[in-house]
């Protein structure tokens, strides 16, 4: 089957002669659409939070239907029972106090972890030995689950807040240091030269050029560090039980399980998820919205 349009390129091939022409363009008003507002539905579906809420609603409905069908509150309590247990825990019980205990502990560990990460990163930026130290330590300790250090921490620091803070610091430190450091290293040479051109060096160069330029990586590090710290804390509390007589969310979950109060177990888990969502969507999302997204450094 010979294709009549197929042209074999060859040596003597010459493009065909065509006449030239000029044409007038159509005036703007004669087009159908140049720019048209989207419909209400299209605008609604463009909102990410609305789409995600819809997904959550579907999951909740599925959960409720399945739990009712199963009809075994010891295995899977219904969503309504979980919400009731959650409400009762907040209003009548000590769930809120447990949340506060956990969050206070978390903030202590997170803050200390960040401070150490800043110190390590500063050291790494200032000298080659510091750089080697950080790279060696992060590659050694980053893959080590913080919770694996808990038995050791118990021996070193005893049964108390210090042990939990120790494992939280371990989980935060390396993730944040790694991200911040790689962020600093990826700042373009041009930006550094611009900073030096206008007389910045040392700490002023770091504060005015390196930190803002590395901000996307720094925020990512903060987010990862937060998630690690939160997980480590709950896990440590579960293993550990009561620390210094107060106990946090992990302990609440463990205790409720022992008493076969499964809706309260679910309520405890629900609280863990809720706090995670709030921190991610309210705090970190807003930090990103007024910084890296506004600056066009992240979409």
């Amino acid at each position, binding site marked *: 089957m010979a294709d009549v349009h197929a042209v074999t390129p060859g040596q003597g091939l010459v493009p065909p002669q065509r006449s030239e022409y000029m044409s007038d363009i159509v005036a703007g008003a004669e087009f159908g659409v140049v720019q048209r507002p989207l419909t209400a539905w299209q605008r609604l579906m463009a909102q990410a939070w609305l789409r995600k809420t819809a997904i959550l609603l579907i999951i909740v409905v599925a959960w409720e239907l399945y739990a009712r069908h199963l009809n075994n509150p010891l295995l899977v309590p219904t969503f309504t029972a979980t919400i009731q247990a959650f409400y009762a825990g907040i209003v009548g019980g000590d769930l809120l106090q447990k949340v506060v205990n956990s969050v206070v502990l978390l903030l202590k560990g997170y803050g200390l972890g960040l401070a150490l990460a800043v110190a390590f990163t500063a050291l790494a930026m200032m000298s080659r030995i510091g750089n080697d130290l950080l790279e060696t330590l992060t590659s050694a300790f980053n893959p080590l689950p913080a919770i694996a250090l808990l038995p050791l921490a118990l021996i070193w620091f005893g049964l108390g807040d210090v042990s939990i803070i120790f494992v939280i610091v371990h989980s935060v430190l390396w993730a944040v240091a790694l991200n911040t450091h790689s962020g600093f290293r990826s700042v*373009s040479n*041009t*930006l550094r*030269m*611009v*900073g*030096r*051109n*206008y*007389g*910045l060096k040392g700490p*002023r160069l770091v504060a*005015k*050029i390196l930190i*803002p*330029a590395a*901000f996307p990586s720094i925020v990512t590090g903060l987010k990862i560090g937060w998630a690690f710290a939160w997980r480590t804390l709950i896990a440590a509390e579960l293993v550990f039980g009561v620390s210094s007589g107060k106990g946090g969310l992990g302990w609440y979950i463990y205790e409720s399980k022992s008493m076969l109060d499964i809706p309260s177990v679910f309520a405890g888990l629900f609280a863990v998820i809720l706090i995670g969502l709030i921190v991610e969507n309210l705090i970190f999302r807003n930090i990103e919205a007024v*910084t890296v997204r*506004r*600056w*066009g*450094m992240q979409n």
Partner: protein
Amino acid sequence: MNAPTKPPPLLQVEGVTLQYRTEKHLVTATYRVSFDVHGADRFVLLGPSGCGKSTLLKAIGGYMTPTEGTMRLKGAPIREPGADRVFVFQEFDQLLPWKTVKQNVIFALESSGKMRGKQAEEQAMRYIEKVNLTKFADSYPHTLSGGMKQRVAIARGLAMEPDVLLMDEPFAALDALTRRKMQEELLQLWEDTRFTVLFVTHSIPEAVMIGNRILLLSPHPGQVKGELNSDGSDPVDPVTGKTLSDRIHATLFADRVEEDEVVHHG
């Protein structure tokens, strides 16, 4: 020069050899380069890639130290980067993405300690107006086109009122139409404020259009091949019948021209 006493040059480069280290080699970028730049010069460093023109500009900026020779600005040796020599780079990311157009200019003025507060803001707006970006003063760089970003960088540089503006192929990453427009605008700005600029390019037409004095550099390592005057019109030399561009081309690519001539005459 009919005046008996020529004013001392603003920038003196004398016998400068520049070397830098790569992972495996020690590279000599320029060898014993000398030239003088005077006030209000539009001095162009022109040469093919590998002639060390950008390295030379970095050294004048204070980012590297010559292994041999001296560089003096107003008689004082150049030792480190400073706000008396402001750089305009080729890369668009020379603007701080976390600052608006106006804040970028103010940043330069305040960081260098040249001006503060209200005074810095007024100076910034004056130069932003000169590059026709008043409407975009509060925009972030990522919302601007490439040409606009370069205009902001030029405004930032000029607002510093430096002794010399160092431009490292500032229009090379722009499309041809925008580049042409930016060249015209730069000349217009020069008419306006008569700054001194040291301009690096590898484009002969750009050098002829922008420069009043063109330094020709040969590659590997960079050595001075000559200095020519230009009035921007690329005139035909009455003696040789060749345009300035042709003369530059012949000088920089002499080897190839000789080959051509052999063919012609042979």
